[in-house]
């Protein structure tokens, strides 16, 4: 391992967070809400330490930078998220929002992984600058993910992200731009343009400027923190809901698509297989839940009302955002279970959404279909094609393997969280599902209108870990726990 590189990357992350903290600091001074010391201290400390380490680890030559091993990347990435969560949570701790570091780290991890699970039960009681920072962590986490998974990962070919590289998703780095820095810049522009567009749209829909920015932060990142306890249900506004549905749906599309759309200026880009499947799943999910809500009469005779709630909540769950307008805990069992299933699918690869990602679901299903076909025609050759690309056998097995790892992690984590007599089985299962797939709210005791306060501190640590595992697609983070990682 190369400690220099690892330290340098993480010093960079620290600098970025320290600098970002200046925004809520300024806001706190402007609003005069008295929270400014909670931002000033961590910000100053992080910038000082970050700058010092960054300077101290300046590469001695160009060659030193080239020697980055797989291990360095895995370690740096995981550490970066842990560091962000611990340090990014410090304002909550200093402000007294949370009494202990476990809770503040949980909230910040939920932010930086764009999960949206919260421990706050009365959100309105917090100062505006604290809530602003809380939402901003998601927006920052979103940038980190897009840059990491679309720009950096395919080039370094690391981890589960290997599957997001050229051969599978059609995101060929040569077709993006040849250099990581340029790609990253281009993606950042897309991210900023989407954010700006949403702020404008929300303002037009009648949201106040502060709320509009806060909700934009968490929509684009598919995070789902809101500055209202009732989430979007607070506004009772169809216009706001429509705007959010559109932007949630847009945020779960691969950012590479936007980039290609801009550079190639051709609508053919939209014929991407994953994108089509994603839209299909989204529409099917909304219609399915709508159907159940109508049949069960959850909203009386009002089909429109049922559609409004199913469209919003299903979009929110598939994109792993986690905003809510209706309390889906009160829905019928079938609708609730459909919600739980959709969590695992998630959005497209290369977006800020979590879950297993649509592309993997496509590959897994088509592999199984091919297997079934082969059990009747044992000698049949069944290449798996996605668009005009053939997915190699090794990639199919890897995707299936990732699925197994995902489910096994889910089972083990659920078992561990379930060792709490006060939690119902469905609460612990959905808490793990919601954090592992970076959705946010679960069902029952951790449901849409509840916080994660019902989970004890041990459980909160496990769930924090689940968010990290889910965000980094399991294997990246799991590798650090393997003895062979530490052996040479």
């Amino acid at each position: 391992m190369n400690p220099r590189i690892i330290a340098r990357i993480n010093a960079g992350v620290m600098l970025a967070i320290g600098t970002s903290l200046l925004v809520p600091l300024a806001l706190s001074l402007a609003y005069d809400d008295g929270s400014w010391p909670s931002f000033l201290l961590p910000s100053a400390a992080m910038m000082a330490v970050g700058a010092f380490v960054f300077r101290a680890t300046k590469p001695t030559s160009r060659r030193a930078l080239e020697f980055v091993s797989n291990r360095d990347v895995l370690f740096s990435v995981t550490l970066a998220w842990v560091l962000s969560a611990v340090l990014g949570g410090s304002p909550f701790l200093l402000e007294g929002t949370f009494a202990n570091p476990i809770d503040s780290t949980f909230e910040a991890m939920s932010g930086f992984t764009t999960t949206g699970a919260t421990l706050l039960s009365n959100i309105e009681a917090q100062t505006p600058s604290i809530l602003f920072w809380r939402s901003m962590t998601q927006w920052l986490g979103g940038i980190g993910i897009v840059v990491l998974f679309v720009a950096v990962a395919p080039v370094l070919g690391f981890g589960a992200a290997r599957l997001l590289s050229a051969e599978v998703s059609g995101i060929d780095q040569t077709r993006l731009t040849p250099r990581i820095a340029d790609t990253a810049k281009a993606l950042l522009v897309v991210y900023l343009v989407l954010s700006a567009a949403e702020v404008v749209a929300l303002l037009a829909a009648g949201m106040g400027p502060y709320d509009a920015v806060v909700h934009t932060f968490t929509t684009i990142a598919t995070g789902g923190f809101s500055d209202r306890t009732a989430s979007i249900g607070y506004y009772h506004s169809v216009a706001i809901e429509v705007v959010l549905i559109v932007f949630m749906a847009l945020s779960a599309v691969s950012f590479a698509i936007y980039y290609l759309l801009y550079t190639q200026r051709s609508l053919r880009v939209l014929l991407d297989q994953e994108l089509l499947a994603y839209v299909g799943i989204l529409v099917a999910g909304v219609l399915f839940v709508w159907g159940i809500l109508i049949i069960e009469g959850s909203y009386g005779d009002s089909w429109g009302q049922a559609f409004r709630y199913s469209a919003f909540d299903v979009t929110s769950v598939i994109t792993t955002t986690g905003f809510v307008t209706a309390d889906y805990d009160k829905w019928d069992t079938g609708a609730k279970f459909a919600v739980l299933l959709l969590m695992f699918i998630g959005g497209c690869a290369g977006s800020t959404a979590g879950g297993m990602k649509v592309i993997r679901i496509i590959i897994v299903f088509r592999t199984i279909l091919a297997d079934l076909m082969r059990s009747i025609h044992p000698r049949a050759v069944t290449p798996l094609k996605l668009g005009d690309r053939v997915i190699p056998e090794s990639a199919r097995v890897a995707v299936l393997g990732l699925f197994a790892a995902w489910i096994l992690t889910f089972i083990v984590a659920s078992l561990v969280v379930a060792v709490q007599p006060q939690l119902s089985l469905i609460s612990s299962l959905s808490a793990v599902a919601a954090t592992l797939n970076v959705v946010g709210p679960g069902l029952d005791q951790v449901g849409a209108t509840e916080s994660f306060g019902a989970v004890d501190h041990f459980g909160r640590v496990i769930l924090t870990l689940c968010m990290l595992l889910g965000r980094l697609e399991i294997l990246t983070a799991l590798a650090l726990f393997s003895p062979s990682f530490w052996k040479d």
Partner: protein
Amino acid sequence: MHPKVIASALGIVIAAGGGVMLIPTVYSLFVADGTTATLAFPALGAGLGGLILFFSTRARDTHVAIQDVFLIVVLGWCAVAAVGSLPYLLSGLMSPVNAFFEAMAGFTTTGASTIITPEEVAPSLLLWRSLCQWTGGIGIVLLFVAIGPLIGFGASQLYSAEVANPVAERLTPRIRDTAKTLAYIYLALTAAGIIALFAAGMGIFDAVNHALTAVSTGGYSTRSGSIAAFDSWPIELAVTVTMLFSGVNYALYFQAARGRLGMVSGNPELRVYLGIVAVGTTIMTVSLYAFDYQKSLVTSFREALFQSVSLLTGTAFSTADWNSWDPLSHGLLLTMMAIGGCAGSTCGGIKVVRAILLAANVRQQVFHMIHPQAITPLRLRDKVMPESLRASVLGFFFVYVATLLAGTLLVALHGVPIGDPLGATFACLNITGTFLGPVGEAQFYAGLPATAKLTLTVFMLLGRLELFTVLVVLTPSFWRS
């Protein structure tokens, strides 16, 4: 596809079902419990009907395609369940849907039941209920161990890939001999079970019934309190040992019968299987002792051992109210249910060997994250497995999870509270028949809507035939020639 071949094979299956039904018929004459007619008519009807079907469709051309086999197996289980449901129906004990559910739960050795108090049911019907499981058990052993490997069917790759079980290669020309040997082993285990239970103090009727359902890892009991009703240490021990033996791959007994004991003791699946029982029992003993002040260490051990073996093998007899146990024990028991016994036994679940390979694969994937260029063959102990097995095991696991979720969704659509659809599908798919909470009790299944019950029978069949067999029949390409 060859409709004649399929019809003639189904004829044999139906006739066999009718033949087995003669046993409770004779027994009912003997005890005069008034069910002779309800058993005799279906028995003779199925026997004659089956034979007529067999003889009328006998073809000279004996070419059998793989599609035929899939259809024969799936339809065979459905047909025999339909025939088997007739006594329940004719005796007025149950509605048609409940009768079919009961029979399917019997022939798939699931053990889910809608009979709330078995004590009030005529003894010959109880005997028939146990015999359904026993017959289903021998069916599955013959299918997966004798026939499967020959035609590349079911989990056969797991046997043929494993050199410890060269059954497939060795017995291709003499499938009849293999089947005969396996049947003898099954009979011997059953006989040993009956003797052991009788010696431990059970009455002969109870001993026969419980031995039939323990050897087939089905779990029907003649008492509403299951094995707890006997409250006897020797009986529990006898049942535990019978279940434990029944969860072992029959191919191993086959090897043992041929004197190849080394292959048996060195079998990695067997070792892990016993290891799971040992570790599970130990942890649960400690956990029960620590959580429950009223239990002595001995009682904790006794209950933990019985429940571990009972749920790992998917038998689901019970001696204690494990519903009220601590969450850790619950978690362990649920995991054991999902794993199930060894491949090539009558158990359900994922099977121990697949669990081993799954864990090995996850470990390798993590290793690959660190060393992307490394080449790591899949190994079972020190034997290298073919790469196709990896894809097959992973694919099975995906389909298992997807099926579980699909089943849960289908049952949940009936408006059952959310934990229960998951539990019921889990219980049926793993051929266990029981779960935490209300699921597993006869009242729960009896109270389900008819369509939910029929849905669950499909999932029993899916679990019993290791998913792919049934799913293949449902694909469009199966019906295209």
